[in-house]
């Protein structure tokens, strides 16, 4: 059940009606749990057994961990939880990959296992793993109600493609009444509309061009290949952040606040900054549960670089069971280590790289890495990269209208968002309310690319002026009606 399908709209309306009809919080929580089970089971009912496994194991492990002060036992239960989660993920997602790679190494054809990759398994195993680790670290108290814990694990808005919500963020919100209210719906609907626009107006429009070029890269010229790669960078951003917006919006309507996942990633002037702004919940997860346990930056400079590379390499593998993803992760890890190295040697010298140069280097590197992320195999990726580097540059020149119509829009949203966000943050540092102009600009225009700062007040996308409201809503409705891509492709991150 994809968010952009009519089926999901019907499903969500039923959920809202059920929530409105329920009288107590407990009933509403139960309604959400049942809805989540139906939502996930809609893909394949067998997946539910898979989802139930971490729900039971991690719940029990967390209770055992908190129930004893003996370090050995705590470690045992933690290890049990982590191994079971990774085992689940490893079998369903990586078994074929490793078997196939091993076979290739031996030069033999190894029979492939017929395993169906369950939707969202990467997301919910990370979510449940973080729960037991947090309990082990005594960052949170374990959840004593299995129903509530199951609701946390199965919560449908973010179940299949994030944002990766931690128990410390979700479980405290269980005390909310969850009664549908207009103020929450008002904000949530705006986010949903924004997410739909990003997905259907931008991502799916660009997908047709990107898919065609990546299917036959050999026939296209360097210019066309570059525009396809740029288009893919925008497609994946609008696809995934659009999904996150819908998830956050839907969740807001229900009554839960999910963490933001994107913060103008393409405005980054360094690769480190990029990873602070791209898929924020995953970056934070990798930092807290992989990079820091590996030693972080506490074990010397060289070890820091190695840790960064390993973290990103595994982060790449998390995305998909293919060597292209591993190399994609390695490219980012290498860039992060290089940037860290530069920061270290530059600490005393204080050489400043101009912002535009930093931005260009970051964006070009990210684009090169996206080629590996998108290409079906290495040979295609290499072919595309050769074309990008002006080797065999002759081919079909294809100027895709929608890309050039969309780019100014995205650039403007990023620039405005960044400008206003900086203003709001500066005001926040001075412990002042955001200036009115910043708030208006921010809320009116930049939600496209950035998350609102708490000081910016509401999420209000919609202007309070009636004339502007009529203009904006009608204009949006016309554009949405006429130009949305109807043959919508599934969200890219659903495959992970």
């Amino acid at each position, binding site marked *: 059940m994809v968010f952009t399908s*009519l089926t999901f709209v019907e499903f969500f309306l039923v959920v809202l009606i059920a929530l409105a009809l329920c009288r107590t919080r407990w009933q509403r929580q139960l309604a959400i749990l049942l809805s989540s089970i139906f939502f996930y089971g809609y893909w394949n009912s067998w997946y539910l057994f898979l989802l139930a496994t971490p729900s039971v194991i991690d719940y029990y492990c967390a209770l055992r961990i908190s129930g004893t002060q003996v370090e050995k036992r705590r470690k045992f239960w933690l290890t049990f939880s982590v191994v079971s989660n990774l085992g689940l993920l490893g079998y369903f997602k990586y078994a074929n990959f490793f078997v196939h790679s091993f076979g290739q190494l031996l030069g033999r054809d190894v029979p492939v296992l017929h395993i169906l990759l369950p939707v969202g398994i990467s997301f919910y195993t990370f979510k449940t793993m973080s729960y037991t680790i947090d309990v082990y670290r005594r960052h949170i108290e374990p959840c004593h109600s299995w129903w509530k814990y199951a609701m946390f694990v199965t919560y449908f808005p973010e179940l299949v493609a994030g944002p990766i919500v931690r128990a410390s963020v979700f479980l405290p919100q269980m005390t909310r009444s969850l009664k549908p209210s207009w103020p929450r719906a008002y904000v949530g609907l705006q986010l949903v509309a924004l997410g739909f626009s990003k997905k259907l107006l931008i991502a799916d429009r660009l997908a*047709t*061009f990107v*898919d*065609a*070029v990546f299917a*036959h890269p*050999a*026939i296209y*010229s360097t210019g066309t290949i570059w525009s396809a790669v740029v288009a893919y960078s925008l497609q994946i951003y609008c696809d995934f952040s659009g999904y996150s917006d819908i998830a956050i919006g839907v969740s807001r309507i229900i009554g839960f606040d999910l963490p933001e996942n994107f913060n103008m990633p393409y405005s980054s002037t360094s690769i480190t900054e990029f990873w602070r702004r791209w898929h924020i919940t995953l970056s934070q997860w990798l930092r807290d549960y992989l990079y820091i346990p590996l030693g972080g930056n506490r074990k010397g400079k060289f070890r820091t670089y190695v840790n960064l590379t390993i973290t990103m390499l595994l982060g790449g593998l998390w995305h998909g069971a293919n060597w292209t993803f591993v190399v994609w992760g390695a490219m980012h890890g290498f860039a992060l280590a290089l940037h860290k190295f530069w920061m270290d040697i530059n600490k005393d010298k204080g050489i400043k790289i101009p912002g535009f140069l930093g931005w260009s280097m970051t964006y070009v590197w990210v684009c090169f890495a996206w080629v590996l992320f998108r290409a079906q195999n290495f040979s295609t990726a290499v072919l595309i990269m050769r074309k990008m580097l002006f080797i065999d540059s*002759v*081919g*079909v*020149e*294809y*100027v*895709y*209208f*929608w890309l050039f119509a969309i780019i100014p829009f995205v650039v403007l949203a990023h620039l405005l968002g960044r400008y206003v966000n900086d203003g709001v943050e500066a005001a926040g540092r001075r412990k002042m309310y955001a200036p009115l102009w910043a708030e208006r600009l921010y809320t009116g225009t930049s939600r496209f690319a950035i998350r609102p700062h708490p000081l910016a007040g509401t999420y209000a996308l919609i202007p309070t*002026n*009636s*004339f*502007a*409201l*009529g*203009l*904006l*809503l*009608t*204009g949006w409705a*016309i554009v949405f*009606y*006429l130009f949305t891509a*109807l043959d919508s492709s599934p969200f890219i991150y659903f495959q992970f």
Partner: protein
Amino acid sequence: MCALELQCADPVKIRVRAYGDRIKVKKMAQQLVAEERSIRASRTRKVRKHRHAWFWFFCGAGVAVLAAELLLHPISGKYETPAEIEIRNFREGQASTHFLPNGLRLTGNPQIPGAQAVLIIGDSHVEAFQIPDDQTMGARLEDKLRASGKQWNAWQYGWSGAEGADYIFAAPMFLEKFPTPYIFLTMNDGDFRTNLGEQARISDHNGTVVAEGLVPNAIRGREPSFGGHLARKMKESGLIYGAALRFQLDLKPQWKEHTASAQDAFPPNGASSVELMEMIVRGLKQQYGDKLRIVYMPPQPFSASEPLEPAESLLIAQCRAQGVQCRSIRDRMIHELTVNHQLSRGFSDTEPAKGHLNARGHQLVADEIFDWLNSN
């Protein structure tokens, strides 16, 4: 010590009872009264503003609609006059196209009265809402013929959704309305999927292929435009026309697909089965006779080593078996791609290499027909 008591009504009455500095108290009272009046005025303004909120909302909506109309006007709309029909399209590519009331697509060239003509028929590829008049296959063919000294006319007649069955059904109309020694039928892989067309169904009756209309008094060929004066005027609006097409061509089929049950699903399409292909080619030959020449337009090939599409190889085999002249523009498309680096399908706002023939594709069809005519 002072005490201040205010009673504010309309008209404002102030009663000040003060102890101490009377002047100071009076000033304070005046200040308070002013504030009270300002608050009242603000409230009144708010109420008025709220009362007019819907008015301003609709004003804003109206401006948005107007702006959309102004933007879409040059690229969307249908203008019908007794002499010709103009259709502006932006759904795939962008072009302004012109048709005669009898359904012929204009070529942008002056027609030579009484001159010999070539008729090109087909589906939306010949209707070609995406291509300006002077770049259509007919226009290009006319240019080439006239440049080579043949003062001929090229007639082109296409209608969206036409399939094999429809061409057979429409044959009497073509033969009667457009007498010409050469009829070039452009076909593609979608024309052989079923014995059902948009308007007709074909069946085999003792060796004779019979095409019957799907509804009583079915129209052969393009359906005439419907609606009165108001409907015609509405179609001239870029926004309304664009919105109507969007509903008709995109949303309605999607909705049908969403609500369709297994029972009302379209009859399963056998992938270009031999029997169906044989029947269509036989039917076409029976109807058009020796005038018929089939031009096959395959999907965009990417290299010469690609195998032929099943529909293409079947069609060529059937045409050979039944003595129907048939050619494919595949080799020309490959040459165009590998030598000139041009795609024959797709437009700058759609998926590359997919969809209808673009201007290059039309040129290739014209080249094929021209060479064919010269070789005869």
